[in-house]
């Protein structure tokens, strides 16, 4: 007869947890004693049902799970099988019809994190497994599933930025039956083409096609054209944007509502300046030459095109410039058979011509002349000197007009628009980047809303194609919305407007753009998260000083529950840690697949991003009995979410400072960097950390330390500490957000001081709370054992703030809780 299980826990009303253990052929069964594991879990108050299945993930297993969920009313399940990264989607999909939503199914990797990598008797591994599974169950018990959020997009698409991709995007959307508002530079399409050479010189061959696109749009009833002033601001979230263009002359600011936005931004072409002898008349760049041709027709005098991108420090664009030079040269040749045309190019570039074009170059006498790149050509009066490759003899080319490559720049206006749209602008770099390496199906993927050469220099055809692609992806989303099948992902952040004070720290640290701009530019207005852009990293929620931001269906409360249960269950020589889905846990999965063994005393919990670990979760681990905590994240500045890993660095340091204030070793918490493709490294890291913890020995479990650990945890919750931490969450020498080492040091000293004050304050307050009697200063100092003056200051502050009472007896002050 089975032992009667203890009363089951239901932290959230009605949360019932079922655990399914997988045999997985012989990959788990035989290495982990599943029968014993089942016994251990049946005794746990956190688990309502346990079952062993041969393969949970195959049709027979899924069939059993469905029956059990329905039959036993399970609304949370843990599948103790294999890699969550690979298999979770299948479970969510197959079990969707049972009512289990994303977040209600968790997976523990028995196979790759325990069975394949740990040495130990099957009963021992079963015991280890039970600890980790119970932790998972505890987290699920704290889950409050959020309601499913349907996204409505009834408003038109707004295309702004004035880039040429506007037209191809509008065409694609109109063809898909979607309403478009285009914000253009000029209402006249002829004008648009006339000035096209300022951004795309030498692209005459595409003008006809462009004209066709523009005509098609003009005739479409779905496309509305507006010509407006500068973009002022964009507010709102997907499905509900408010776009404001600033006032022009005596016109008021114009406001439009849009469902989604596409930014068509074209880069600028500047001249090379005096560095190459530019004078705008004889020494020109491509755009000026084009203008020249428009005004005065093709030249009759000798023209030399110098593809000088390598010398101008923009080697990536040499190909593009060479193509433009060729296009312009052939245009001139078509109109003047005798003009002397030469293209001078660094021999490191291959002339970007196909066979037919080479034949044409020979036939029509457009010479491509290479020079040795080690010697920079020099511009002289009427001649340009260069070093002939092979012979090393300095030769000369005669010129009457010298056309240089343009200096490419994203454009000041374009960068401004990009900033308003919440894109991350790094200095004056081009805008292309791929931060959204998490959820391909979300709107936040760059290719869905950004098109044009400000993204990265490209030719007209590529620009138009990008516009078309952005429109196509946008159309897909809008059609889903129309069909009522567009739902926001469930693990996204959300703001509690009651708690949010509008400080904007979340927006500052989040790189994914999920925290949307809100009305007004001051504080005091609660933030809003755009669920279609948020990638679910959670570092914002981990940083919020007032705990106003939560990562739905994956909250700090859930993580604290997991960490508590595991910490309490660990033996004295056992160690725990977190691994992120992209770094630590991925490396651990691969270590299992490769069969690389490491110390079984290490217990791993998985998170999506190490940055979603609030410092309180780390503190909680220690409060509940952890002796050591290892955080396995991605390499620096390689976080898939918004630099969560880099923020974790600061949070870990904060906890280290507090540990040392308690008198414990700073080494007990550590951050490590994992590459998923080097699982052998994970084994070395874990083994080393366990050895380090062995050297330190377990944390003393006396009452004093316990009280201090509780104070440590509470200190991490105080807004002031969280505020100061939030002021600088990064290493000073990073490339993305660099700062000065000296400033960083000064800041860190301030942080240490603030921490000491807040820690003492928490200790004093908690002491009075525990004692719940009236105490004299000396009694308090005697127990707390801190400098009298510091304790006195704390008491004064606390009583001034009304948190404690100061009572006088015979004119001597005594203190007690309010």
């Amino acid at each position, binding site marked *: 007869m089975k032992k009667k299980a203890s009363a089951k826990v239901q932290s959230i009303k009605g949360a019932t947890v079922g655990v399914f253990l997988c*045999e997985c*052929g*012989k990959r788990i069964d035989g290495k982990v004693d599943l029968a014993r594991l089942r016994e251990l879990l049946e005794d746990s108050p956190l688990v309502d049902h346990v079952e062993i299945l*041969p*393969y949970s*993930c*195959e*049709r*027979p*297993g899924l*069939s059993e799970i469905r029956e059990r969920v329905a039959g036993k009313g399970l609304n949370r399940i843990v599948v103790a099988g294999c*890699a969550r*990264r*690979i*298999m979770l*989607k*299948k479970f969510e999909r197959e079990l969707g019809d049972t009512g289990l939503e994303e977040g209600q199914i968790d997976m523990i990797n028995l196979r790759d994190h325990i069975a394949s990598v740990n040495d130990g008797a099957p009963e021992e591994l079963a015991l280890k497994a039970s600890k980790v599974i119970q932790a998972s169950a505890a987290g699920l018990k704290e889950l409050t599933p959020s309601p499913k959020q349907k996204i409505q997009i009834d408003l038109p698409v707004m295309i702004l930025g004035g880039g040429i991709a506007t037209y191809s995007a509008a065409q694609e959307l109109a063809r898909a039956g979607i309403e478009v508002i285009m914000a253009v530079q000029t209402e006249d399409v002829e004008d648009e083409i006339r000035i096209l050479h300022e951004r795309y010189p030498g692209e005459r061959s595409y003008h006809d096609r462009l004209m066709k696109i523009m005509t098609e749009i003009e005739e479409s009833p779905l496309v509305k054209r507006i010509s407006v002033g500068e973009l002022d601001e964009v507010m709102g979230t997907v499905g509900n944007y408010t776009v404001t263009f600033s006032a022009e002359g005596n016109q008021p600011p114009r406001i439009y509502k849009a469902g989604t936005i596409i930014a068509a931004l074209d880069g600028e072409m500047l001249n090379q300046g005096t560095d190459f002898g530019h004078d705008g008349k004889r020494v020109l760049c491509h755009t000026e030459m084009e203008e020249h041709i428009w005004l005065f027709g093709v030249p009759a005098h000798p023209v030399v095109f110098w593809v000088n991108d390598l010398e101008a420090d923009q080697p*990536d664009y040499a190909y593009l410039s060479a193509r433009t030079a060729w296009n312009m040269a052939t245009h001139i040749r078509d109109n003047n058979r005798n003009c002397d045309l030469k293209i001078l190019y660094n021999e490191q570039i291959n002339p970007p011509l196909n066979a037919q074009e080479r034949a044409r170059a020979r036939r029509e006498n457009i010479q491509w002349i290479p020079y040795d790149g080690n010697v920079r050509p020099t511009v002289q009066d009427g001649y340009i000197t260069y070093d002939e490759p092979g012979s090393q003899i300095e030769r000369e080319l005669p010129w009457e007009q010298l056309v240089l490559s343009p200096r490419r720049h994203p454009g000041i206006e374009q960068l401004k628009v990009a900033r308003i749209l919440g894109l*991350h602008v*790094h200095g004056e*770099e*081009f805008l*292309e*980047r*791929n*931060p959204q*390496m*998490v959820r*391909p*199906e979300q709107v936040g993927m760059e290719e869905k809303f950004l098109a044009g050469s400000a993204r*990265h220099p490209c030719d007209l055809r590529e620009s138009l194609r990008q516009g078309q692609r952005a429109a196509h992806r946008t159309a897909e989303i809008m059609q889903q919305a129309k069909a009522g099948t567009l739902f926001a992902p469930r693990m996204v952040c959300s703001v509690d407007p009651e708690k949010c004070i509008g400080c904007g720290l979340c927006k500052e640290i989040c*790189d994914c753009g999920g925290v949307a701009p809100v009305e007004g530019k001051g504080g005091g207005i609660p933030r809003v998260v755009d669920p279609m852009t948020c990638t679910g990293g959670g570092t914002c929620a981990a940083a919020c000083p007032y705990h106003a931001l939560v990562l739905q269906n994956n909250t700090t409360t859930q993580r604290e529950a997991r960490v508590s249960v595991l910490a309490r269950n660990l033996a004295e020589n056992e160690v725990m840690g977190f691994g992120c*889905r*992209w770094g630590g846990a*991925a490396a651990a*999965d*691969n270590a299992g*697949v*490769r069969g690389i063994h490491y110390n079984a005393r290490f217990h791993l919990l998985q998170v999506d991003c190490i940055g979603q670990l609030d410092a309180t979760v780390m503190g909680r681990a220690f409060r509940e009995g952890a002796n050591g905590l290892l955080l396995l994240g991605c*390499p620096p*500045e*390689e*976080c*898939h979410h918004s*630099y969560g890993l880099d923020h974790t660095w600061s949070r870990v340091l904060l906890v280290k400072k507090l540990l040392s204030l308690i008198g414990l070793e700073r080494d007990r918490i550590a951050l490590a960097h994992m590459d*998923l*493709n080097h699982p052998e490294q994970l084994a070395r890291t874990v083994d080393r950390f366990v050895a380090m913890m062995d050297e330190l020995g377990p944390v003393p479990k006396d009452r004093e330390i316990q009280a201090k650990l509780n104070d440590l945890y509470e200190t991490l919750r105080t807004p002031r500490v969280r505020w100061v931490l939030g002021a600088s969450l990064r290493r000073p020498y990073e*490339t*993305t957000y660099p700062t000065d080492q000296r400033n960083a040091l000064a800041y860190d000293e301030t942080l240490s001081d603030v921490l000491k004050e807040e820690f003492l304050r928490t200790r004093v307050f908690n002491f009075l709370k525990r004692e719940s009697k009236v105490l004299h200063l000396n009694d308090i100092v005697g127990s707390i054992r801190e400098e009298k003056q510091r304790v006195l200051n704390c008491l004064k502050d606390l009583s001034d703030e009304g948190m404690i009472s100061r009572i006088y007896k015979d004119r001597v002050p005594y203190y007690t809780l309010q």
Partner: protein
Amino acid sequence: MSKKSEKDNGKIHFTIDGQEVEAEEGWTVLDTARHYRIPIPTLCHHEAVKPSGACRLCVVEAKQGDWSKVVISCMYPPWEGVEIQTRSERVMNVRRWILEMLLAECPAAEEIRALAAEHGVLDTRFKVEDPEEQCLLCGLCVRVCEEVVGVRAISFGSRGVHKHIATPYMVPNQACIACGSCVTVCPTGAMEARLERVRGDIAERTGHGFAH
């Protein structure tokens, strides 16, 4: 009582290696075998993705009376009364041939060598093109990238004897989100060796520098 198919419980009754088994509509022979803990070796099968039938290692013999056919268990739907044999002579012969060919295809793959040795295949008569190769072209990386991750960053290039795992233009693919799913499902060390060709330089792609 008579255990013939008169049991109307909506299930399919058949046998595997003489043992009576029951399957629901939609289950394959492999699903059923695994449910009854009857081992059948596989290579290109992974629970996360749909079966592709590329490796043919999971072959079984489906028999009824004089009729028999060698089929792949990962896709074959069982029918009432069929007798499945997982280790018949024909089946073992097929598996040995496959493993011998694989030893030539991916000689450096330790996992294949071990599996082959279990079947008594120690060397190969076929020509070894690349002694360093570990990839057996099971296609799991391609399928997981398409079905689970959804970005389709890798695919097969060329066909026939020149088939290989490739990204467009053989350069790191911007569509790759560096999740490592391909490495995790790869049955050998082949993807681990190739990963840099697919994901490129992460630091450049996660926020600063150009995503090229």
